[in-house]
């Protein structure tokens, strides 16, 4: 393992310290329990949005803390969900009196810890709601599984509901909007390489040079299927087709297409893949109305990508376009 770190056990602490120094105008960072919150929190009378998850997915979630998006993020250890204390501390920092919405990715640990935190926070009299996102079409949802994972679609949810909260939408409205995004967003990812979690010290799975993993999550866990390596046209088709068929997205649908790098795939390949994704959608008569391309929901240095489609209507499009000012996502202000 070769990484720019001192000690695997202090990676998250040291990264948070640097992040606070890099964005003093946007963020405040507390090391223990670890919480990142927007510099002007709590915003009186505004619904507060709190999310979190394992570290290693940067810029998610801390990079999305700021005006028009999250009020606070709780970074856990690398690829490990945050603890209930972190969530509770975040809620105390950002609760502006209008209630708190917890945005949780559907992973067993995240759900358990946020659930515990929600119980504790509710006992303190805070109006708290939880929305679980499960956009990953690689996982079959049934009574006998933990259900679909929450992956890159989380960013779209945080942006859209964040815009609504910034404009003064109440907690019921924010919760309903979040559920609407969950119902209309789907993702699928692939990996060309594994990544190395600092405290593990070796790659999270072995993958030959001529193979790739289809249907990965965002924690370096292997995918559903291992396939022989293919050219980009075929790779992107493997991602787009199951996503389109899942909702399903139909001819004439207006969508937001989010082409995401898992961290190790450079923009030249990502733009190439994005072009293919647009072409495949155009062939199906699906109208790409908004785009986001970049490394936003990552798995350390893993090479690979994911595509996310969100079915848009006027309301979602307008909220997506609304001003946002965070470390990683910024427009309109």
């Amino acid at each position, binding site marked *: 393992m070769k990484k720019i770190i001192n000690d695997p056990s202090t990676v998250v602490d040291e990264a948070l310290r640097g992040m606070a120094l890099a964005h003093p105008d946007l963020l405040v960072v507390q090391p223990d329990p670890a919480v990142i919150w927007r510099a002007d929190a709590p915003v009186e009378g505004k619904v507060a949005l709190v999310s979190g998850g394992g570290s290693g997915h940067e810029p998610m979630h801390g990079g999305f803390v700021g005006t028009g998006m999250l009020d606070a993020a709780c970074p856990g250890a*690398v690829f*490990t969900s945050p*603890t*209930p204390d972190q969530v509770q501390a975040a809620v105390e920092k950002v609760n502006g009196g209008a209630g708190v919405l917890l945005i949780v990715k559907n992973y067993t*640990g995240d759900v358990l*810890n946020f659930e*515990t935190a929600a119980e504790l926070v509710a006992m303190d009299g805070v109006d708290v709601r939880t929305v679980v996102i499960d956009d990953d079409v690689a996982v079959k949802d049934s009574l006998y599984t933990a259900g679909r994972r929450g992956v890159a679609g989380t960013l779209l949810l945080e942006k859209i509901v964040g815009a609504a909260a910034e404009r003064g939408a109440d907690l019921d409205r924010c919760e309903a909007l979040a559920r609407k995004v969950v119902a209309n967003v789907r993702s699928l990812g692939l990996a060309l390489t594994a990544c190395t979690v600092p405290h593990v010290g070796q790659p999270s799975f072995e993958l030959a040079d001529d193979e790739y993993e289809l249907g990965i*999550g965002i924690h370096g866990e*292997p995918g559903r299927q291992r396939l022989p390596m293919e050219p980009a046209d075929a790779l992107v088709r493997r991602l787009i087709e199951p996503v389109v068929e899942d909702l399903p997205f139909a001819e004439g649908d207006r969508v937001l297409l989010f082409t995401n790098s898992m961290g190790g795939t450079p923009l030249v390949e990502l733009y190439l893949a994005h072009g293919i994704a647009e072409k495949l959608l155009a062939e199906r008569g699906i109208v790409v109305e908004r785009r986001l391309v970049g490394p936003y929901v990552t798995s350390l240095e893993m090479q690979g990508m994911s595509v996310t489609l969100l079915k848009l209507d006027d309301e979602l499009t307008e909220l997506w376009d609304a001003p946002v000012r965070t470390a990683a996502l910024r427009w309109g202000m």
Partner: protein
Amino acid sequence: MGCSGTDVASAVRAMATVVAAHRDELVELDRAIGDGDHGENLKRGFEAVVSALDSSEVDTPTAVLKLVAKTLISKVGGASGPLLGTAFLRAATSLEEVDGASVAAALRAALDGVVARGKAEVGDKTMVDALRPAVDAAEAVKDKSVAEVLAAAATAAEAGAESTIPLVARKGRASYLGERSAGHLDPGARSTSLLLRSLVDSAAAS
């Protein structure tokens, strides 16, 4: 039989030693079907437990177990933190007189807590595959000594953990692998059996 907070605390310290000794093994098991953090998370959690015990003056078995529960929930994260923490918390509320029957009852309460939180059952390839047979075995011999009850539990947990190898995971992160999760020992079942075995060893030593 009398049992002081100090006895329970030294049993918990023994657990911490076992977790540290098996850290790499648990990381490897988790790397195969999860993301490899199980050993590190448990080690970090039990280190925090030991330092919490060092810096507090809890004196009853219940108080010690509550401190352990609270520390695991607030330091471990992932699924293991809330699940193991809940197990200790529930065990704490049912441990009054320490004899074979009360140990079996504490294990039963721990299992009920884990099932309530994680909603897993035997066959899902989780810690429940080790814990439920352990509780059944403990209850079957609950009229015997504490040491015998714990030994029965640990032996059953070990067999239960082994039984996860052919299973396809239906809960937790391994479930995302589907059929590919078969053929691997579940790290949560393994750590559960290790923790129970360490209790046998510390009961024998006390």
